[in-house]
């Protein structure tokens, strides 16, 4: 009797079940993955396009921009200019993977290994996802969001909701908390801390201080502290613009605040994905490669299926060179997969160079355990900084070019040699660091008692300013939400000089002039 999971390209639901079970055994027993329960949904091409247009989520509120994306994707797909993804996977519990009905049996196995095990493990174990996302609650929350927005449309009109969502979407990238926030302490620990403070004061009490050090008589100090106090109350400076508007914008109605909150929550949910693209794809690709190899070795898939798998695997991890017409940035699948492979090699078969660069893991003999540790505790930026090996830099022949607008020519800063490795690691890591890639914009001040003008600063890293047209449009949205004038200053962090200013006044499209 043949051990094959399937023969030929056709599949049925029991084929998928068999393939899943075989893959599960490899994934859990040999790779030791820790996953959410899987839910695999078979969908058609049109449904895949649907999912594309609503940022991959199975249900979402309605907005014209999703229609626009749908139209674009549909156009490209119909014209044959763009294939569709084989799968989409959602960070939820249970973990939902959409697979296309047109996939062959081999592709379904590949997709299950990739999404239902690779991505799934990453979602469940990576610290960023644990910190920022709630896999158990996301689907319910989306359901709530969809209903809430629909109800608002009924009550306040589609146009009003659309304008609000336009504005909120424009600020979506600036609607995330980038650092874990201080949790409000519970009452018991408040009490304990109060007691400790008092004991401390009693202990250091010394009459000498009271009698000898003059008390600063002071208006100056009072003013200063009033200023401080005001800023502290508003939690300024604040980089989460949507959060700030939701909490402080003077004239928003409660439902408008709730809609801002919805957009903000969803942005926050996607925040880790943007920071772990390389690792996430690297992890999933490495996992599917291991699993498929194992299935082939144990005779569960035929040579033909194996070759079909290799064909699609190699096209996924293909990295065109910079002067190639197909080049469009570094392929996260290619670099991610190569790095995972390289780390596995360093664990089992290190060179002298590896031992100097990675003393902690070189030759440790446990590649899977090391990778699991890495998947759990790094994000793209720290991962590259820590684990991009000189050997890989040589293999990809990565080089760094500096483009200074004040210089007539570009300068090659580093190449794949002894002097260049560190610089390339750092440079590449920065490209994956959201703190570098999204502009640093913060609300710095507002005088709620006075003219209520909102002042924001953009700290222009390396003097790279904002795109002016876009900035003007977004600022207009911001002013509409805030309800009063808004001023954005672009500041050179090195010299604190103001490079440029943008201002906007509300149009009254979101907030009605009567203060409603």
């Amino acid at each position, binding site marked *: 009797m043949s051990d094959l999971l399937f023969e030929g390209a056709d599949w049925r639901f029991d084929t998928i079940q068999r393939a899943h079970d075989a893959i599960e055994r490899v994934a859990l027993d040999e790779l030791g993955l820790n996953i959410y329960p899987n839910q695999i949904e078979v969908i*058609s091409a049109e*449904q895949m396009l649907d999912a594309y247009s609503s940022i991959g989520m199975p249900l979402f509120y309605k907005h014209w921009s999703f229609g626009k994306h749908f139209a674009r994707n549909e156009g490209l797909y119909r014209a044959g200019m763009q294939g569709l993804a084989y799968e989409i996977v959602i960070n939820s519990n249970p973990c939902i993977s959409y697979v296309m009905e047109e996939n062959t049996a081999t592709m379904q196995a590949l997709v299950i290994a990739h999404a239902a095990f690779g991505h799934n493990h990453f979602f469940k174990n990576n610290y960023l996802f644990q910190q920022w996302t709630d896999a158990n609650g996301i689907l319910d929350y989306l359901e709530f969001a969809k209903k809430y927005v629909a109800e608002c449309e009924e009550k306040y009109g589609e146009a009003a909701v659309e304008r609000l969502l336009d504005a909120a979407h424009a600020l979506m990238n600036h609607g995330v908390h980038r650092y874990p926030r201080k949790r409000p302490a519970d009452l018991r620990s408040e009490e304990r801390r109060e007691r400790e403070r008092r004991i401390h004061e009693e202990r250091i009490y010394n009459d000498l201080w009271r009698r000898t050090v003059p008390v600063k008589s002071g208006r100056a100090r009072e003013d200063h502290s009033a200023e401080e106090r005001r800023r502290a109350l508003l939690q300024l400076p604040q980089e989460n613009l949507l959060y700030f508007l939701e909490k402080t914008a003077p004239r928003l109605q409660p439902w408008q605040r709730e809609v801002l909150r919805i957009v903000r929550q969803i942005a926050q949910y996607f925040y880790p994905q943007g920071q772990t693209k390389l690792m996430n794809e690297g992890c999933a690709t490495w996992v599917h490669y291991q699993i498929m190899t194992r299935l082939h070795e144990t005779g569960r898939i035929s040579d033909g299926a194996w070759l079909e798998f290799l064909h699609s695997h190699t096209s996924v991890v293909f990295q065109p060179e910079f002067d190639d017409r197909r080049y469009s940035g570094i392929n996260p699948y290619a670099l991610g997969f190569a790095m995972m492979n390289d780390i596995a090699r360093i664990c089992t078969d290190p060179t002298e160079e590896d031992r100097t660069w990675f003393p902690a893991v070189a030759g440790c003999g446990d590649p899977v355990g090391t990778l699991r540790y890495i998947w759990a505790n790094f994000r793209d930026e720290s991962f590259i900084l820590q684990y991009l090996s000189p050997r890989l830099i040589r293999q990809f022949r990565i080089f760094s070019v500096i483009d200074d607008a004040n210089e007539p020519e570009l300068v090659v800063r580093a*190449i794949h040699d002894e002097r260049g490795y560190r610089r390339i690691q750092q440079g*590449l890591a920065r490209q994956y660091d959201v703190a570098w890639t999204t502009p640093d914009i913060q609300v710095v001040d507002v005088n709620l008692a006075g003219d209520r003008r909102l002042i924001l600063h953009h700290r*222009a890293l390396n003097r790279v300013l904002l795109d002016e047209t876009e900035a003007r449009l977004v600022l207009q949205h911001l002013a509409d939400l805030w309800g009063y004038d808004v001023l954005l200053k672009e500041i050179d962090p090195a010299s604190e000089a103001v490079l440029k200013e943008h201002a906007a006044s509300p149009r009254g499209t979101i907030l009605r002039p009567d203060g409603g």
Partner: protein
Amino acid sequence: MHIIDRRLNPGGKSLANRQRFMRRAKSLIRKAVHEASAKRSIKDADQGGEVSLPSQGVSEPSFRRARSGGIREHLLPGNKEYIQGDTIPRPDGGGRGRGSEGSPDGEGQDDFRFALSHDEFVDLFLEDLELPNLAKRRVTSTESVSWHRAGYSVSGSPANLALMRTIRNSLSRRIALRRPKSEDLQALREEIDALEESGADPEEVAELRAELERKLRRSTVIPYIDPLDVRYKRFEARPKPIAQAVMFCLMDVSGSMTEHMKDLAKRFYILLYIFLRRRYKHVDVVFIRHTHHAQEVDEDTFFHSPETGGTVVSTALEEMRRVVKERYSPDDWNIYAAQASDGDNTSSDNERTANLLSNEILPVCQYYAYLEVGREGEHFPPGFARRDSDLWHTYSILVRAGAPMAMRKVNHRRDIYPVFRELFARKPAGADAKRERAGVS
């Protein structure tokens, strides 16, 4: 693990989003549709398809770094010859070349392209327009039939059995022929039983038995349902009246017509064609060009092949009359004509043209439009009207006399659509009655 088959879920989930998008981008799409239609041939003009919108119209802005300025570092794979400290001349087009803008966001500045369906395309194109004189509908031999219920018949397939009608027939026949009811028979039997039990009056029992016998025989002879009662629903094939239209494009191609003028004319024809296509299932287009003589040609020749000669408009009308007579009987076809010209005509021909038009052509036409195309940039300061051309002058007399035709002047491409809309704009009911009557007669 669960496997769920979602393929059967209702599709079109993003239809609502698409409609919202269309509504938002309506004015942009409308403009794009008109530009797109100008590039196509007349017959392909309403095929739907791709239009492109300028991206800023439907942009989703966000705070984003500018594409140039400041200090940037690019990390690229595939170094071949560079060593540290090499300088590279700045590629053209700011920071775009060399893939240096490895844009992780993938957002370009290109136009936004997407496909419109046929219906969406035409709807946008012809919003608020109405075709005049849509009255003529003729049954033609080749078209399809539709089935309609038409009473009952005595024969048919079991599936078409008309149950109610059959039972009704059966009931009336049974009443008329006095078929014994089953209750009567039952009552008779009970009476006989009762009499037999009591043992009295054997003669009456025998009589009753005989009657029962007779009634039973009668009820077998007269069946409950007879083939005579059975009725079937009857369906009748009716030929579907299919309206068909023919559109005549008449154009002066003499030397005085520039490419620009022909382009204006073409745009107008395209609009008219699309418009007719929406209302008629079948639209023929006939191209007639003329100089001092006229001939029927194909589309390509019509627009592109140059011709020299004088200008005698009546030849084109003559040719049109000939074609109508040969192929398009006014009884079967809705005839629309659009004439484009720069207004020149041999002055001796004017009267003949007017006669031909009002006596021969207009009576068979649903609609006749005359478009006078002018040179680009030919604008006269207010108060200095251009002298009316020969043709304009001739036709104005007809129109003033109440002839059912429309005439407009166009100088620039951008005027075509407004003029077209003006000609076909939905009018308050009754305003057009006079023309309509004349058109259908």
